[in-house]
Structure formats: C-alpha cells, structure tokens
C-alpha cells in the first residue's frame, strides 16, 4: 500500500542518516558478518552494534539470522525492495486499468440518465 511504502521509505532514509549504519551497510555489501565482527570493525560494544543493526533491520535494509550463538547479518535490501517495487508496479497496472474502467462507468451512468 502507498502508506505502507511511505513508512518503509521514511524508515529507510532515517536508518541511512547515521554514519555507523552506512558503514555497516558498506561492510555487509562486501560480505555477510556476525554482530561480533561488526563490533570489532567499528570498535563498538555488542549492545551498541545490535542497536544499529536493529534500526537497519526495521527498515528492511538488513536481515539477520541466528545460528547457534552467532547472529549473522546480511543486506536485506534487494529482495525486500524488489518486492515493494514490484507490488507498486502491480498497483499502477490495476490503477491504470481502473481509470479506463471509470470512463466506461461514466458512459453507462450517462446513458441511464438520458433514457
């Protein structure tokens, strides 16, 4: 839905407003990484990194998966954005059809009122 997408976009942009979070995306663009690896790379506590990853995850930019004791982070953007963009195109397709359908509806109503 349009509103839903707007919220998603807003959260994407606000997630990107932070330098560390942009750095995390850049790092994940090269390879998947665990929370521990990210904490080392950015010289932050595990809790601090988890917070940033949480914001990115909320915005659909990163996905995480816990296997055993290790939480692996990877870019989640592509798949989610692909789907959101596809649904928007799908919506536009029906919207264009319905605009044409409106014309037929108006014709039918006019015909009725002149009878």
């Amino acid at each position: 839905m349009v509103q839903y997408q707007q919220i998603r976009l807003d959260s994407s942009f606000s997630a990107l407003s932070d330098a560390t979070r942009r750095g995390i995306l850049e790092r994940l663009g090269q390879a998947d990484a665990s929370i521990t690896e990210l904490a080392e790379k950015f010289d932050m506590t595990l809790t601090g990194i988890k917070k940033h990853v949480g914001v990115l995850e909320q915005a659909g930019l990163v996905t995480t998966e816990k296997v055993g004791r290790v939480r692996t982070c990877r870019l989640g953007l592509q798949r989610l954005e692909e789907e959101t963009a596809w649904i928007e195109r799908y919506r536009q397709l029906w919207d264009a059809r319905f605009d044409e359908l409106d014309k037929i509806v108006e014709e039918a109503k006019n015909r009725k009122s002149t009878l």
Partner: protein
Amino acid sequence: MKNSTTAERTSDRELVVRRTFNCPAHILFEAWASPELLKRWWVPPSFGMTFVSCEADVRTGGTYRFVFSHPAFEEPMPFFGRYIEVTPDSRIVWTNEEGAEGPVSTVTFEETDGKTLLVLTELYPSKEALDDAIATGSSGASGAPEQFEQLDKLLATLVKP
C-alpha cells in the same frame, strides 16, 4: 477527484487490490462480463499493448482467451483460463492457465449507498509461485516509481565497492 487504488501482499500466497467506484455494482459487473467492454479497459494506452482478440464467456464453467501484441513481443501473447464461479453483479472467480503456477483470481463487488468497493484477490498455489512471479517481474507494468529509483541510487553508492 479520482478514487485511489491500493495493492498489498496480504500473505505468502496472496495479493489484494482495492478500489471504490462511484456507481452501482451491476455496472462494474457488466464491464467485466462483456468482452466488448473488457477490451476497452483491460489494456490502458499507457501499456503500449494492443488487444488482438478478446474472447470471454463469463459464466460458471466458461473460458476466456485474451491475445495481446506489443512491439517488444516477437509474437502475440495469449492469456487464458476458466471461470470457476460467476455470480452476477457480485463475484467472478477465474484461473490463469498460461503459466504452470498461475493464481486463482477473485473479484468481488460490494455496493453501499450507490458506490461499489471492488476487491481483487490473486491467490497463488504456493509462496514459491508468488515469489517467482515477483522475481521474474511478471504481471507488473514497466517503470519503477521515482522514489525507489532515488533510494536505489543512494544505496548503490553506499554498498558498491
């Protein structure tokens, strides 16, 4: 002012489109059930496609076959299936059989105070079938919205080495 169209993925297997029309339900049903009328709105000019033929026997058990041409298609492309259920002025259910795992589509018309809410549901046989449709870009019209292009560009500068 025109009424807005919404579309959402409501589950692993299902897409739902909604739109209100300023008319009674029977007018909408007529526009879906008559091939002559269907031909006039199913392929809007912006698609760049042409209806080569439109056959539709909109009765329970009836079949349809739409054939389109497009400059990008090597030959005309047929879309076909069966009407599983047709209830005049309220509901049409049909299959999409041009692909192996096409959805079952249901359109309902709910009239209230002279206006009609149209709800179109497309139920795919599995999550994989819908994921595939999305991944291959089928059913979608061309052109991503500007906002997404902007976001894509922004992200491309961030994540590409």
